[in-house]
């Protein structure tokens, strides 16, 4: 950077020094021409040319550096085209004004044309100054224009573009250098002619590099159309009317050749530009729209990865569609809500009552979730007429287009051309319907209909084939984005559910007894395995009375699984723990009260089967009652039997029928007697042949293991079920086993 600045100072210094020397020389020549013309040798022209060359070269590099430094590092143009026209026009005006004023203020400049030798010397000091002023201002202007045009030519360059341009510039420069020492009016030497011809040829090649025109905006093009003639005119005025070309020639013939070449090239380039602008102008609207489309599509595709909220996608989709079809268009998005397995019938019924519902059948409905420049009322009016649009999309997922709402057979209009023609004349004073032409595209991702993007215009035939393609592309992109968002949503939901289930599982595990109860002369042990994360099985022990002579044992199965079952379990535990102490004598009474309490809190369709026994450790007996639960097994001696007691599950009935049906029984337990409580997970376990584990096998295992401890019997049953289901079978439900055993004295 510092290097660059230093270089620029050096260039500036070179320009300054050479110009001062040159100016002094010219003033000297004027006085010499006035006094002693014989002192002037033509050799002095070489000195002048050399000085002018240095000055011109330094000035060119300086301007180039300056323009380059003022631009963004990676910008294709150092001065943006639209900017260049503005600056070019104002600078040429300034230049012309400056030189014109100078010409007015001082005597007209001229050079001695008659005298061969005096032609070298300026006519007056003013003339000398004007010569250098013109060079420094207009010369600088031409060089700057040359640099700017170079960048324009190199925009979107092809392989040879740069070579062509350099060839032109260098042959022009070399042609100029070849004329070193010549005077104005001298015949050009052959070398110069050769170089200049090459330069001229290359100019023609370079003139038609205009790729920068297309991308600039339409209004910029129109402005350029007016500014280009200003610049061309300005250059022409300066060169001819203000006679700057003569001053250039007086400054240095060689450099003037170069500058003139530049002036001609730049003017021609502007003329070609002018015509191109005229040609491109009609196409530029289409080009601009295409580039907006491309931009929008790009933004849309970025959306897929960036935005995860469905609602935002709907909004931006509608926004993009409206951008693409102009600010006057109407756009909205109808979401498709299918009634599937996962949507509960009740939910879908609630959804169907939404006010912004478009259309529905037994499989699903559409509802408007985003709209722009259109009211729900308008959409409603339209959709009540054009129901077929949504039916078509739901059934066939095809694009629907209506060219003229008032003249569409599908909307019940008569296709009479005359009537329609006449209708135009009594036009729309009473009708304010803005949806006149209409297009709807389905959003489909992975064969699933997500919804319909609808765009409408307030005039007939507002959509052509390209529009459909465009909107279809939008729809595809958006469908992907929505699908993506849903997948991620589902993942997040699943994870959250998993977390909830873990919490429920923890709660549930804590609801189960952590230790075995102390019961003199008895052993109790139990276990519960949920089939899924959270189960619906529950067992518990409640010491009854202060002396803890009696113990309540409950095994229950809450219908339904998951988090709600865990909550019912918690409720059940509270009820059991409190009621067991209030009704210490009768398990039947206990279950009646428990049913009353629990029925109130239970969801419709949920129920709890429960078996409740009160173990009296003193009387060695078991008082048993059953509310719709699997019958307990009693093993006495080497005989196992089921204690079948009638009773309804808790929650099936609120009171009367339950109380009428419930029974209880008393069993005396002898030493070594075993009672097994269990849930249906045990008897409904299946093997690979779909055969149930069943009551008989369970009783058999209990009978077989009767001499073991309660824990061992429990384990034996559990292992037996596992062995049974191994190799292709399944435990389809939660599995709970509680074993009570009277110990031998």
């Amino acid at each position: 950077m510092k290097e660059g600045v230093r270089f620029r100072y050096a260039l500036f210094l070179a320009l300054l020094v050479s110009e001062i020397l040159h100016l002094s020389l010219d003033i000297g020549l004027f006085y010499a021409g006035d006094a002693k013309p014989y002192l002037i040798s033509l050799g002095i022209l070489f000195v002048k040319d050399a000085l002018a060359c240095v000055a011109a070269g330094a000035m060119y590099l300086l301007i180039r550096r300056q323009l380059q430094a003022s631009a963004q590092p990676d910008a294709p143009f150092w001065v943006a085209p639209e900017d260049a026209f503005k600056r070019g026009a104002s600078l040429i005006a300034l230049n012309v004004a400056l030189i014109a004023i100078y010409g007015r203020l001082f005597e007209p400049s001229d050079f001695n044309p008659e005298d061969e030798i005096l032609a070298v010397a300026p006519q007056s000091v003013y003339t000398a100054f004007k010569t250098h002023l013109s060079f420094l201002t207009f010369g600088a202007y031409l060089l700057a224009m040359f640099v700017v045009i170079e960048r324009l030519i190199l925009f979107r360059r092809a392989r040879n573009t740069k070579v062509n341009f350099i060839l032109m510039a260098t042959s022009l420069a070399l042609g100029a250098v070849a004329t070193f020492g010549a005077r104005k009016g001298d015949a050009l030497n052959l070398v110069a002619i050769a170089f200049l011809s090459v330069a001229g040829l290359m100019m023609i090649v370079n003139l038609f590099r205009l790729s920068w025109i297309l991308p600039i905006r339409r209004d910029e093009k129109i402005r350029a159309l007016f500014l280009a003639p200003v610049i061309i005119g300005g250059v022409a005025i300066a060169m001819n009317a203000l006679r700057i070309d003569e001053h250039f020639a007086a400054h240095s013939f060689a450099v003037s050749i170069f500058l003139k070449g530049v002036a001609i090239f730049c003017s021609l380039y502007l003329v070609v530009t002018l015509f191109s602008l005229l040609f491109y102008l009609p196409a530029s609207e289409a080009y601009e729209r295409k580039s907006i489309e491309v931009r929008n599509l790009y933004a849309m595709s970025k959306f897929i990865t960036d935005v995860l909220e469905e609602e935002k996608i709907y909004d931006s989709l509608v926004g993009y569609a409206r951008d693409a079809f102009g600010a006057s268009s109407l756009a909205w998005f109808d979401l498709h809500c299918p009634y599937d397995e996962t949507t509960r019938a009740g939910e879908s019924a609630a959804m169907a009552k939404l006010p912004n519902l478009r259309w529905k059948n037994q499989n699903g409905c559409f509802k408007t979730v985003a709209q722009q420049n259109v009211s729900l009322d308008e959409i409603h009016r339209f959709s009540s007429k054009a129901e077929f649009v949504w039916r078509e999309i739901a059934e066939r997922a095809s694009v629907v287009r209506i060219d003229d709402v008032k003249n569409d057979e599908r909307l019940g209009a008569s296709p009479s051309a005359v009537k329609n023609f006449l209708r135009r004349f009594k036009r729309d004073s009473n009708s304010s319907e803005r949806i006149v032409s209409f297009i709807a595209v389905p959003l489909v991702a992975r064969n699933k209909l997500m919804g319909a993007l609808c765009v409408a215009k307030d005039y007939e035939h507002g959509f052509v084939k390209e529009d459909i393609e465009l909107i279809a592309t939008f729809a595809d992109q958006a469908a992907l984005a929505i699908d993506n968002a849903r997948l991620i949503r589902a993942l997040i939901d699943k994870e959250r559910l998993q977390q909830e289930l873990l919490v429920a599982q923890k709660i549930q595990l804590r609801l189960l007894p952590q230790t075995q109860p102390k019961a003199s002369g008895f052993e109790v042990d139990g276990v519960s395995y949920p089939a899924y994360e959270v189960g619906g099985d529950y067992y518990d022990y409640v010491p009854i009375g202060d002396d803890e002579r009696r113990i309540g044992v409950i095994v229950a199965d809450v219908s339904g699984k998951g988090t709600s079952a865990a909550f019912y379990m918690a409720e059940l535990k509270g009820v059991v723990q409190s009621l067991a102490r209030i009704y210490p004598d009768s398990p039947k009474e206990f279950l009646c009260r428990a049913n009353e309490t629990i029925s109130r809190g239970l969801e419709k369709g949920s129920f709890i089967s429960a078996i409740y026994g009160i173990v009296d450790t003193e009387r060695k007996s078991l008082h048993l009652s059953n509310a719709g639960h699997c019958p307990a097994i009693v093993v006495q001696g080497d005989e196992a039997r089921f204690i079948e007691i009638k009773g309804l599950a808790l929650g099936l009935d609120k009171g009367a029928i339950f109380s009428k049906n419930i029974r209880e029984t008393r069993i005396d337990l002898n030493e070594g007697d075993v009672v097994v409580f269990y849930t249906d997970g045990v008897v409904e376990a299946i093997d690979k042949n779909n055969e149930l584990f069943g009551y008989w096998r369970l009783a058999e295992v209990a009978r077989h293991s009767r001499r073991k401890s309660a824990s061992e019997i429990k384990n034996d049953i559990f292992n037996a079920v596992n062995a049974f289901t191994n190799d292709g079978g399944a435990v389809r439900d939660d599995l709970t086993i509680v074993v009570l055993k009277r110990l031998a004295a």
Partner: protein
Amino acid sequence: MATFNASVRESGKTSVIDVSGDLDAHTAVQLERVFEKLISEQRANIVVNFSNLNYISSAGLGVFMAFIDEVRSKGGDIKFANMPEKIYQIFDLLGFPSLYEIYDDEKKAIEKFQTNAS
């Protein structure tokens, strides 16, 4: 997954739902929908024919619980018919026979509706 199907037949003013396959927590929604539809059509006399049902879970039983009050409040009923033994055992265990009328034959259930109506 096990399949489940519930289809409705009309027999006069009585609707007969034929259930087949496995009625569990996943498939219960289908049966719910059938009940909802019947109720919305004011068809409250409902007989459920279980002859082809293979398995019923507690969630499946819950479906009948969920709709019985509404159906009865409309003057109708849900009656069960043609239960295979193992299905009946489950209903019996939970005490359903004291809450619902269960018939061997679907015709008897339909007749019952008719005699009630006359």
